[in-house]
């Protein structure tokens, strides 16, 4: 697989899986308004995944649905951070915040890419991410002195580093005020047991009628 296809799948898989995990809060978020906002952000992330899978599908001679739903768990290229099943609001906001900051660093780099198609898509995605960052930052500011939130950020930090290639990690550390510790990083390419469980649920309907035109 080309490096470009690998990159596109890493980006798409991160966005799909984080969107899917965040969508688990639909109907059970702490307030109605937050429920709508959080679900909407989750949908946006899945929309970004769709656009990235479309580019990857051209590169691989496949189609976006097949890439999203028909691969084996080991073939997914998402980082372990997005796979974690966190049914706790402090951890969920900590992940949202760390993911958005990492995604900001990554997207900013992609917007400078020589790959015009990818740079253009990154710029388009970034215009929507402005509101995701606003949402994540307002929550992080509100929970900053809450011990459960601080503990969750520290716990997830080694996972957050795994979103980025090593050269971009110091910038993320600067943004969130933490330090890079390479030894602890949960790297992309390894998976948590939660991923296989997620994929079983996510692909359940699609697997029920293989090859169907939906």
């Amino acid at each position: 697989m080309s490096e470009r296809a690998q990159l596109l799948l890493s980006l798409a898989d991160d966005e799909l899986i984080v969107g899917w995990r965040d969508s688990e809060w639909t109907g059970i978020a702490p307030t109605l308004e937050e429920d709508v906002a959080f679900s909407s952000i989750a949908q946006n992330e899945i929309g970004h995944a769709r656009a990235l899978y479309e580019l990857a599908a051209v590169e691989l001679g496949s189609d976006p649905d097949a890439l999203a739903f028909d691969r084996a768990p080991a073939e997914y290229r998402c980082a372990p951070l997005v796979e974690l099943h966190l049914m706790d609001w402090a951890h969920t906001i900590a992940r949202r915040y760390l993911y958005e900051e990492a995604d900001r660093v990554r997207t900013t780099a992609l917007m400078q890419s020589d790959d015009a198609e990818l740079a253009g898509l990154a710029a388009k995605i970034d215009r929507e991410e402005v509101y995701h960052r606003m949402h994540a930052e307002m929550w992080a500011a509100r929970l900053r002195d809450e011990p459960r939130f601080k503990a969750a950020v520290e716990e997830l930090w080694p996972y957050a580093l795994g979103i980025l290639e090593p050269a971009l990690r110091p910038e993320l550390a600067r943004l969130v005020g933490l330090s890079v510790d390479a030894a602890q990083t949960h790297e992309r390419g390894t998976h948590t047991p939660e991923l296989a469980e997620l994929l079983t649920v996510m692909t359940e309907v699609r697997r029920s009628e293989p090859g169907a035109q939906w």
Partner: protein
Amino acid sequence: MSVFEVFRQERKGQPFAHAGSIVAPDATFADAWAREQYGRRGESVALWLVPRDAIHQVTEWADEFDLKYRRVDGYSIKARLKEARERAGTTPSVAG
């Protein structure tokens, strides 16, 4: 938590109309939440978020002397319009 009344503008130049409200801890949260509730389907070009406490409501008017000529329902324009049309010899192109 406090209540923010939300007014939305559908197109540039149009008046803002009351759309509903948002319960939020502060203006930052109200901004983020109202965006999603009242704007994510492209139904608004702008929103006004007004703390409910800032609204000064007026509901009562004294009308002790029955000065109904001041009210729009005190003056029937329909009959006078009909008379004027008859005098001018014109009839309306559509009924009413």
